[in-house]
């Protein structure tokens, strides 16, 4: 399938560096699936669905900055929904997000509520002005917020907020956020890794499982098609949390 032309219907500023783009047409994604967003003239980058018809983007570099220059009426090319999304399991679930990682979890939580599940959310941000999707998460059920600077909610990382909850009591935990934060949460949940699903970030180029850019050591999991949602027990046996690869395949280690 060629990229589908999608017109930007609406842009919402979620915080100073994060915006939500809503498109026509809409899609039918499983929460956790992603789109390859072709910002014409710049690059094509992966973005998770935060709505059926939308993505929520943090401005980071060339492609995201170019996207931020596009307002309603402008268009992008979209390939998707791609990859394997989250699998809803059990009756009581916990969402743990960090920063823009809240995006796919918001869509997941809303889907879970529609299905009658009980949803608790733990969302970490750097500071109160970084908060996104507060009302979406509040509508779903309990929401614990953490901020690095304590300007809102619990002071500390999302993992700090975990102490206020009983993670073992949830049927399933869903993670999305910076890799060290996700690794931290997983390590604090040793013993029930198999009940944790994480949407992870790797360099996605082809999005169709052939170029090899997104593969996880040592199994060679193709994140773009077998992920981006992967169970924590598999992640623990992988490079996850230690390094990822850059666009040319060079390993980039996380600082400990």
């Amino acid at each position, binding site marked *: *399938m*060629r*990229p589908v*032309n999608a017109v930007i219907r609406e842009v919402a500023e979620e915080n100073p560096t994060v915006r939500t783009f809503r498109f026509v047409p809409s899609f039918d994604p499983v929460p956790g699936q992603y789109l*390859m967003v*072709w910002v*014409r*003239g*710049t*690059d*094509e*980058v992966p973005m998770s669905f935060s709505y059926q018809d939308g993505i929520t983007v943090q401005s980071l570099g060339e492609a995201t900055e170019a996207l931020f220059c596009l307002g309603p009426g402008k*268009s992008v*090319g979209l*390939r998707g929904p791609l990859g394997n999304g989250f699998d809803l399991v059990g009756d009581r679930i916990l969402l743990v997000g960090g920063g823009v990682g809240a995006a796919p979890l918001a869509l997941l939580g809303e889907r879970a509520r529609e299905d009658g599940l009980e949803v608790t959310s733990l969302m970490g941000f750097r500071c109160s002005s970084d908060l996104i999707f507060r009302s979406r998460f509040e509508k779903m059920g309990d929401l614990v917020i953490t901020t690095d600077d304590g300007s809102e909610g619990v002071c500390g990382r999302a993992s700090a907020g975990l102490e206020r909850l009983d993670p073992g009591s949830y049927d399933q935990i869903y993670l999305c956020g910076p890799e060290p934060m996700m690794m931290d949460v997983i390590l604090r949940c040793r013993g029930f890794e198999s009940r944790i699903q994480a949407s992870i970030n790797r360099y996605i*180029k*082809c*999005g*169709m*499982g*052939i*170029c*090899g*850019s997104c*593969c*996880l*050591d*040592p*199994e*060679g999991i*193709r994140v773009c098609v077998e992920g981006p949602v992967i169970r924590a027990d598999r992640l623990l046996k992988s490079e996850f949390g230690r390094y990822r*690869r*850059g*666009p*040319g*395949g*060079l390993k980039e280690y996380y600082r400990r």
Partner: protein
Amino acid sequence: MATLSGAVGGLVLRNPVMLAAGILGTTGSSLRRAARAGAGCVVTKSVGASPREGHPGPVVVQVEGGLINAMGLPNPSYKNFQEEIDLARQGGVPVVASIFGDGPEEFAEVASGLDADCFELNLSCPHAERYGSEIGCEPSNVEDITRAVKKSVDVPVWVKLTPNVADIVSLGKAAQRGGANAVVAINTLKAMAIDVETGRPILGNRFGGLSGPAIKPVAIRCVFDLSAALEVPVIGVGGISSWEDAAEMILAGAQGVQVGTALAGGYGIFGEITAGLERYLVRKGLTLMELRGAARKTP
């Protein structure tokens, strides 16, 4: 039980169905996975003298019967690639290092810097300036580069040819003169796709290379012609996505086949093709050797 094992281009393989260059070949782990999934050998992503990030996206676009890619030879350079080859070798099959460079010296530098079971010279990538088919469409370059690499390594050397020429056989002969142990045909066809809504070329690099079922008939033709004209074996690649396709390529004269785009359907393709080929040989009462090039022998 028909056996699929045998010599291919100076290697001894358990089966002649290989992972093609540039497909899931950036990391040792994905190469090892292909080996464990049943590939007879695996070819790495093409690596060069210095790290490259590749072209901006989109780097692939799906078209009818295949896809166009312009990855732009992203690779960590040979200096950072030995550990990937070492890991890939745990798959238990030979690891072929695909390499590129801008001329005989750079090719020799890259080859000398790697310990692999075989080298495949990428003289055929159609979308990277100064590399690939830009130099590989000249027989004299093909010959010189092949000779230079042959001198600097003591494992088999394969030469991957571009179909974007009037006469691929002259390239094959040049590789043969240069001492190649096999030629590999074909790399992708020069191609392009334009977005109708915006009038914009879709690939970040504008141009790319067409692969997949769409190019199989071109590949079959090239392999047929090359295998008729050369003494060195030909390895066929282009659009193979089933055992029938592999059989067709072998009938055309291929000693081995490589699978690229079809990996989009998963690693299971190796098992499907080898199982299908085995059943076919048993049903026909033929050996792999008898199959090879049989299309040339029909009246």
